């Protein structure tokens, strides 16, 4: 046992601990502990009062036993007694016991809180500190409730000792983190901020942790801290290393404080005050200058402290992203670190550079280090550093160096670590697509990628290459040739076979002229791989074969032979068997014309967000958003219509800001994946799908309307489009008055009669999603405005107005929205609606904002229709007809006969009628083909019962199908309005 100092040594405790340590077995230890516990119990029970020393000793022993893992169920009272002692050591042990063994025993908590309160109000700083430490260590909600009011007072009181202030600041931070709702700063805010001016550096260091935490939650209240922090920082930075005495660490003045100050500043945008900003820039420059100075000490602590400040300063510079000069200097500094012999420094340098690369000011500067980074990728020993190097290469890539970087990454891929391969593959695929100047290079790159790292090439990558080849006429021949050559390798990856099968099936004719790749040679080449492939690939190959029959009639006999063989037509896999049978029949029955129609070349795919990007995003999580936003900026370059970049931004914002509507807009980002992945839903769709990709993607979308909205827009933005004018203003007058409603707004309104959620409006800039719910005569509507661009919308405002008599019929309340909508962000607006009486018109929604200086003004009709306030009513047939008869006055009935504009699918009709809000009554109408509904419209003034009957004549020829819709309600206007609304739906 180490000798215990005489002053506060407890011999009994030392002996006990050494006894325990000398125990040979667990049993012996338990026996010793039992004995000691019995001894302590008898001592505590004893009539003779114990003196403070022995109490302390026994409590210590209990603590030790507890820490050994045994239960302690007594001694709490003695510990609490120790709290009221006047001796430091006794008090300390008491607090120690309380913080280790606290339980929410009501009576004791009260006593403990009392003791703490006494200590807090004592003038003795050490006691106050002990109490504060105890509160922080326990940190429970009860503690916060009891002391959250007290501690700020101690913190800002003028006469509090510095050491107590430090403890109080940290204690408050702990309580705030544990239960933020209980710590209310309010009146203390400004005084806490002024702690930054405190004489004592320790107090400042402690306070700044608190302020950073608080200001990250509510930055506005603590705005004043910026200037204080800047002046403090400049004082530290400009001080000589000897000025701060105790707070100089290996010749670096107050490194922790500096780091914390810099981090605090990162919570805020650059200071607007010119003087403050100038001072801050000066500071940052000084820090950068200091990094250049020769080190004052060879010790590693010196350079660590210095570099910590430097990196924090660089992240602040990156955060501000407004000082080109500083950004370039930071970049150069990091460039030096890239070749530092410290691995950690190289890692940090690469990581920071990644963010620097995305800034427009420093992008060029970062690019100068490309050789070093490539070298790092190849030679670094640590995989995490290599990963960062790969990230940086990805970030610094642009058109000028894309070929080099892609080539380097490809060559590295052969030796890359397995853990980062998939990500590398995705990155190569994205870069190749994004910066492809000529598409033969792109095709080469991707095929190389499949060759090198086939296992890591995810589905999306090869879907994408097929999409691009199909959409680009000029590359098809080349692609077919390359694929054909690649397939000739004796062992090629299954993904290669997939691509090969698809492309040769589509464009094999383009290379059939060459005798070396005659149709039969092509077929034999593909079929030689057939047996090595998995079922989905085989299915794809079978589809390719049937396409061959169409392309090259001379191969028909051979292929039919193959399809007819037992291994196909009697395959144990249902999918393969079905394909073989169907294709065989198709090829033998159908005439050449039919065959040619059915097996026509695939139409171009609608351009959507690259599915690969979505995949990468999924892999990296929200952290990748910055890179994606960067993609948005680049979008004009090659592939992007405005559509694509915007999508990326919106999807990214969805990923980062979870909102109730996340899936609402997310629909779109999910859709492209499936749209691009023909085999996702049904395998039969892939090559052979009669409907073509547009239809298949529509099938995937939940609501046909969405795809209807997308389709025109998607088809007019083909894969490659010059940096067009897609970003220009939408067709609306740039005036301050609300624009007249868009011509299509009525149509939009009709889309929402039978449903409550969806996308209301979308153009190149803005997307508006709706989610609404109704209950009796009240409704609530959530509007989601998504900024599809990467530039923020300024002075964004929305108004909802009720024109004319609607004002008295409908009560609409809105909350204002934030005037700023960041690029790629989404804001939400809540609208409360109350229906006073029945109405016809819809309220108008007007949206105004400035995008790049141009005023945008859009007016829409809010989809609030009278039927939203329907309450479904169930009733029996007898009831229904009785009521039907009661409403027999001519003005109570409204009837319409109209042509069916959609098919007469029973399920669709039912869904629409239910979506209307009424109850669909079964077995009421004698004719089972007819539909009968009942409901009550709830308005504040009255309730209007409503009965509905829809009679389709399904037997008629398609195109001549008609409906008769009859509505009866107790109010004539209601009948007419609902009838009008509903007539548009079928």
């Amino acid at each position: 046992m180490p000798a215990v100092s005489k002053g506060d040594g407890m011999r009994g405790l030392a002996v006990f601990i050494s006894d325990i340590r000398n125990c040979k077995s667990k049993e012996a230890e338990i026996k010793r502990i039992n004995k000691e516990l019995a001894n302590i119990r008898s001592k505590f029970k004893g009539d003779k009062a114990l003196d403070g020393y022995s109490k302390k000793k026994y409590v210590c022993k209990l603590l030790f036993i507890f820490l050994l893992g045994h239960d302690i169920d007594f001694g709490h009272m003695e510990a609490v007694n120790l709290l009221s002692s006047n001796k430091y050591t006794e008090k300390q042990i008491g607090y120690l016991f309380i913080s280790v063994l606290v339980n929410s025993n009501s009576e004791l908590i009260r006593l403990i809180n009392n003791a703490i309160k006494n200590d807090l109000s004592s003038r003795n700083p050490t006691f106050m500190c002990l109490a504060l430490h105890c509160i922080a260590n326990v940190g429970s909600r009860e503690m916060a409730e009891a002391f959250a009011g007290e501690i700020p007072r101690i913190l800002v009181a003028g006469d509090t000792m510095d050491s107590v202030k430090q403890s109080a600041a940290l204690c408050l931070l702990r309580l705030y983190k544990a239960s933020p709702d209980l710590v209310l700063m309010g009146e203390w805010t400004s005084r806490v901020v002024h702690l930054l001016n405190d004489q004592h550096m320790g107090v400042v260091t402690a306070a700044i942790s608190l302020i950073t935490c608080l200001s990250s939650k509510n930055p506005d209240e603590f705005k004043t801290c910026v200037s204080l922090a800047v002046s403090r920082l400049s004082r530290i930075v400009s001080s000589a290393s000897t000025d701060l005495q105790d707070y100089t660490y290996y010749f670096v003045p107050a490194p922790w404080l500096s780091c914390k100050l810099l981090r605090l500043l990162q919570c805020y945008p650059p200071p607007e005050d010119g003087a403050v900003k100038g001072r801050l820039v000066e500071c940052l420059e000084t820090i950068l200058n200091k990094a250049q100075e020769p080190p004052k000490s060879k010790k590693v602590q010196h350079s660590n402290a210095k570099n910590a400040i430097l990196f924090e300063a660089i992240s602040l510079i990156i955060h501000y992203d407004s000082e080109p000069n500083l950004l370039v200097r930071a970049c150069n500094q990091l460039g030096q670190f890239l070749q530092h012999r410290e691995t950690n420094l190289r890692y940090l340098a690469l990581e920071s550079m990644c963010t620097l690369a995305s800034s427009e000011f420093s992008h060029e500067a970062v690019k100068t280090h490309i050789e070093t980074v490539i070298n790092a990728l190849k030679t670094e020993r640590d995989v995490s550093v290599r990963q960062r190097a790969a990230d940086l290469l990805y970030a610094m890539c642009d058109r000028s160096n894309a070929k080099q970087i892609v080539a380097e990454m490809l060559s590295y891929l052969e030796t890359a670590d397995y853990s980062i391969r998939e990500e590398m593959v995705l990155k190569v695929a994205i870069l190749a697509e994004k910066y492809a100047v000529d598409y033969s290079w792109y095709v080469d790159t991707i095929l190389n990628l499949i060759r090198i790292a086939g296992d890591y090439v995810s589905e999306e990558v090869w879907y994408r290459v097929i999409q691009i080849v199909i959409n680009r006429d000029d590359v098809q021949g080349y692609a077919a040739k390359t694929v054909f050559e690649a397939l000739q390798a004796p062992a090629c990856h299954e993904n290669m076979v997939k691509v090969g099968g698809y492309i040769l099936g589509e464009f094999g004719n383009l290379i059939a002229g060459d005798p070396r790749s005659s149709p039969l040679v092509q077929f034999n080449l593909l079929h030689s791989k057939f047996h090595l492939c998995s079922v989905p690939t085989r299915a794809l190959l079978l589809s390719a074969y049937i396409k061959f029959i169409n392309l090259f009639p001379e191969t028909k006999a051979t292929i039919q032979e193959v399809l007819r063989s037992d291994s196909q037509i009697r395959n144990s896999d249902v999918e393969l068997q079905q394909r073989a049978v169907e294709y065989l029949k198709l090829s033998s029955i159908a005439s050449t014309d039919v065959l040619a129609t059915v097996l026509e070349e695939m139409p171009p795919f609608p351009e959507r967000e690259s599915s690969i990007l979505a995949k990468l995003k999924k892999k990296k999580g929200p952290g990748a958003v910055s890179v994606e936003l960067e993609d948005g900026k680049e979008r004009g370059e090659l592939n992007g219509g405005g559509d694509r970049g915007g999508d990326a931004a919106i999807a990214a914002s969805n990923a980062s800001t979870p909102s109730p509507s996340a899936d609402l807009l997310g629909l779109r980002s999910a859709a492209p994946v499936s749209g691009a992945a023909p085999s996702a839903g049904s395998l039969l769709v892939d090559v052979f799908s009669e409907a073509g990709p547009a239809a298949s993607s529509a099938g995937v979308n939940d609501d046909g309307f969405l795809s209807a909205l997308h389709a025109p827009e998607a088809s007019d933005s083909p894969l490659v489009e010059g940096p067009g004018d897609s970003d220009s203003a939408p067709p609306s007058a740039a005036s301050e008055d609300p624009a007249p409603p868009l011509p299509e707004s009525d149509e939009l309104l009709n889309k929402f009669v039978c449903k409550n959620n969806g996308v209301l409006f979308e153009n190149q800039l803005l997307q508006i999603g709706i989610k609404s719910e109704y209950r009796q005569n009240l409704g609530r509507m959530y509007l989601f405005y998504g900024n599809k661009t990467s530039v923020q919308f300024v002075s964004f405002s929305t108004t909802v107005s009720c024109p004319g008599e609607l004002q008295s019929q409908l009560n609409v309340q809105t909350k204002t929205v934030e005037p700023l909508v960041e690029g790629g962000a989404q804001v939400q607006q809540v609208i409360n609606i109350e229906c006073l009486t029945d109405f016809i018109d819809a309220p108008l929604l007007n949206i105004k904002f400035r995008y790049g200086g141009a005023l945008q003004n859009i007016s829409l009709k809010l989809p609030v229709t009278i039927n939203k306030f329907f309450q479904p009513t169930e009733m029996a047939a007898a009831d229904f007809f009785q009521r039907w008869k009661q409403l027999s006055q001519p003005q109570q009935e409204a009837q319409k006969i109209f042509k069916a504009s959609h098919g007469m699918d029973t399920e669709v009709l039912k869904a629409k009628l239910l979506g209307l809000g009424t109850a669909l009554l079964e077995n009421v109408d004698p004719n089972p083909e007819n539909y009968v509904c009942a409901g009550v419209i709830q308005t504040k003034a009255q309730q209007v019962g409503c009965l509905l009957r829809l009679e389709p004549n399904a037997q008629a020829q398609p195109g001549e199908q008609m409906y008769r819709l009859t509505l009866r309600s107790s109010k004539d206007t209601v009948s007419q309005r609902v009838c009008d609304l509903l007539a548009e739906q079928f």
Partner: protein
Amino acid sequence: MIGGLFIYNHKGEVLISRVYRDDIGRNAVDAFRVNVIHARQQVRSPVTNIARTSFFHVKRSNIWLAAVTKQNVNAAMVFEFLYKMCDVMTAYFGKISEENIKNNFVLIYELLDEILDFGYPQNSETGALKTFITQTGIKSQSKEEQSQITSQVTGQIGWRREGIKYRRNELFLDVLESVNLLMSPQGQVLSAHVSGRVVMKSYLSGMPECKFGMNDKIVIDKQGKGGATEEAAGKRSGHQSIAIDDCTFHQCVRLSKFDAERSISFIPPDGECELMRYRTTKDIILPFRVIPLVREVGRTKLEVKVVIKSNFKPSLLAQKIEVRIPTPLNTSGVQVICMKGKAKYKASENAIVWKIKRMAGMKESQISAEIELLPTNDKKKWARPPISMNFEVPFAPSGLKVRYLKVFEPKLNYSDHDVIKWVRYIGRSGIYETRC
């Protein structure tokens, strides 16, 4: 089959490690130490399965013996082997302790080579082993002796060699029983059984054929059927018969004969052997009755009174009586008064231990104690563990009696009458508990 055998000391250091099969690696040694010996919670199961490897262990004082296997072996066989291994070691160097094992580790390896072959147990009869594994160094044996050993070890009667001669033919028979009991506070027997062993130590010349008889109910009933009714037969033989639930015999007993006529006949090994093991559950004579009385006086005091009554012939003396009365975990002080023996509160074991050296039959004795308690925050009620008892009595609580042990040696000139025979009965307590 057994893949390896390890012996550890209390710290988990390996003293002996013998691996018989390749599927057991070195790491098995550590796995057992980490998961069993140093386990945070005490491991109570003697079989532990770690990573598809089974560990069977027994503990002798501070020494752990662990057999390891990856196969699905007969666990009973493994434990039988481990116990035998303990017996063999005890026979060679006395008590199994760390020091003894360290001093004899060459011998132990030699023994392990002999009694386990590729994990299959071999001859583990101490008498036979001692003829060729000796502690006195290598004694050069003549060819004759060697061939004799070979024929004995591989022959039909592997446990006894020929040509043994004694001047005095003596035979000792011990009936050792342990009686287990769990009784309710009201005196109702909740469970009771006796497990017994018949241990024989023989110093007989030649190859004697022995026959052992006891008051087994089945045998006596069979005899009785020849003559009068059952009771009459019981009375004629002069004592009660007992029902044996199950029994196992030493390998020397001819099982075929036992199955056919239920007679126990055998050629005994020289020296000590355990002739049979048995278990009975009916008509057990409980040597002691414990009557507890526990009264809680308020929250801080407990009064305990325990009476023990001896329940056997007054002429017999029970020995080494120890009564263990558990105390609550928040005991802060104990006062004990007892008429007989010595009683003490042992804080380290949370119990009052009352010891009486001797006690005659049909007597009773009493202890009373006052236990002071410390009020605690814990609302948990004390579980009141049962009062347990240890003792030794000079009779068999199962009622087993040796009726005869006959010795025939046709080749030599001594008869049954010339053999001096000793019989001794010892009844000990197993787990003998009374709830309070």
